[in-house]
């Protein structure tokens, strides 16, 4: 392992402030440089570690860039068909209610093909956590338009920009889910700055607690970037995300439990 280090004298076990959690496996992440998936995975892994959930967690991975999520977190996994993760998770949680059950899905998975499964799992108030990575594009298949692609945004299937007259408007699934009585905690976060990473971690931790209390579905949307699909550098993509995605998908809680 090639390491580059700062001041060597400070590097001692007792001075350790931050180390990648052992819930992350040693596998190299397959994501593009700067992609928010890696950060989101790590936050989730840290929560599983800190809350002692490794032997309780059962995750459901999607179809999309994160289809191989099961290579990266050392817990039991089920790979779901495209969009079906909430249905898969429904059965797991109903049959094994003491486990920590969550799905991790992209915008095509959750808001296109999986629209019915998303809405109905939330409508039934299934006691699961849905993590929704929204980067407004289909990354894995090469950058096609997603239900959450912004008006005017270019993609390989909207090469002149999304025309809402023929392609519809972006679908705000999280807002729709927040209107359902079965959803308990619905929030929108990001992972592109340290401050936002901390907020996202807090949101996921809350969702873990709520699941233990059997309160209903928690949905944590993470507005994220796709440097490859958006054809920008990672740093540019985070800036573009702040300037264009956030106004459309504002960060913050959409639904919190009454205190």
């Amino acid at each position: 392992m090639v390491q580059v280090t700062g001041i060597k004298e400070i590097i001692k076990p007792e001075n350790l402030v931050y180390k990648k959690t052992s819930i992350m496996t040693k596998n190299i992440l397959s994501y593009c440089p700067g992609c928010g998936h890696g950060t989101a995975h790590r936050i989730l892994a840290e929560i599983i570690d800190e809350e002692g959930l490794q032997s309780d967690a059962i995750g459901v991975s999607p179809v999309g860039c994160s289809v191989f999520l099961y290579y990266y977190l050392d817990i039991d996994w089920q790979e779901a068909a495209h969009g079906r993760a909430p249905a898969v998770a429904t059965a797991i949680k109903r049959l094994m209610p003491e486990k920590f059950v969550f799905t991790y899905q992209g915008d095509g998975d959750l808001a296109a093909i999986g629209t019915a499964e998303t809405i109905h799992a939330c409508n039934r108030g299934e006691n699961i956590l849905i993590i929704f990575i929204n980067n407004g594009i289909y990354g894995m298949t090469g950058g096609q338009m997603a239900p959450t692609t912004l008006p005017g945004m270019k993609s390989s299937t909207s090469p002149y920009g999304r025309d809402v007259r023929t392609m519809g408007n972006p679908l705000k699934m999280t807002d729709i889910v927040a209107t359902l009585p079965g959803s308990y905690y619905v929030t929108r976060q990001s992972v592109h700055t340290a401050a936002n990473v901390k907020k996202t971690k807090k949101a996921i931790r809350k969702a873990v607690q709520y699941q233990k209390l059997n309160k209903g579905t928690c949905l944590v949307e993470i507005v994220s970037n796709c440097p490859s699909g958006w054809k920008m550098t990672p740093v540019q993509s985070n800036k573009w995300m702040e300037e264009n995605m956030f106004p459309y998908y504002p960060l913050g809680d959409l639904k919190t439990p009454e205190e």
Partner: protein
Amino acid sequence: MAKIRGSIVVNAERCKGCEVCMVTCPTGTIAMAKEVNGKGYNYAYPANPDLCIGCANCAMVCPDGVITVYKTKI
């Protein structure tokens, strides 16, 4: 008066040179190397190690989790 000093360790071979850590670092500690690693990425490294305050912001935003952070009072 005691000062907080930090030190980061970057796994240069696994760094993908995305630069998000560099942009996030509040003190200007991190820069991208002129050399590339085995994958062809200009990896991040603590170019100005004396500026590091061990805040771990870099490690928190790193998508590949290649940064380990240490901190002490001097």
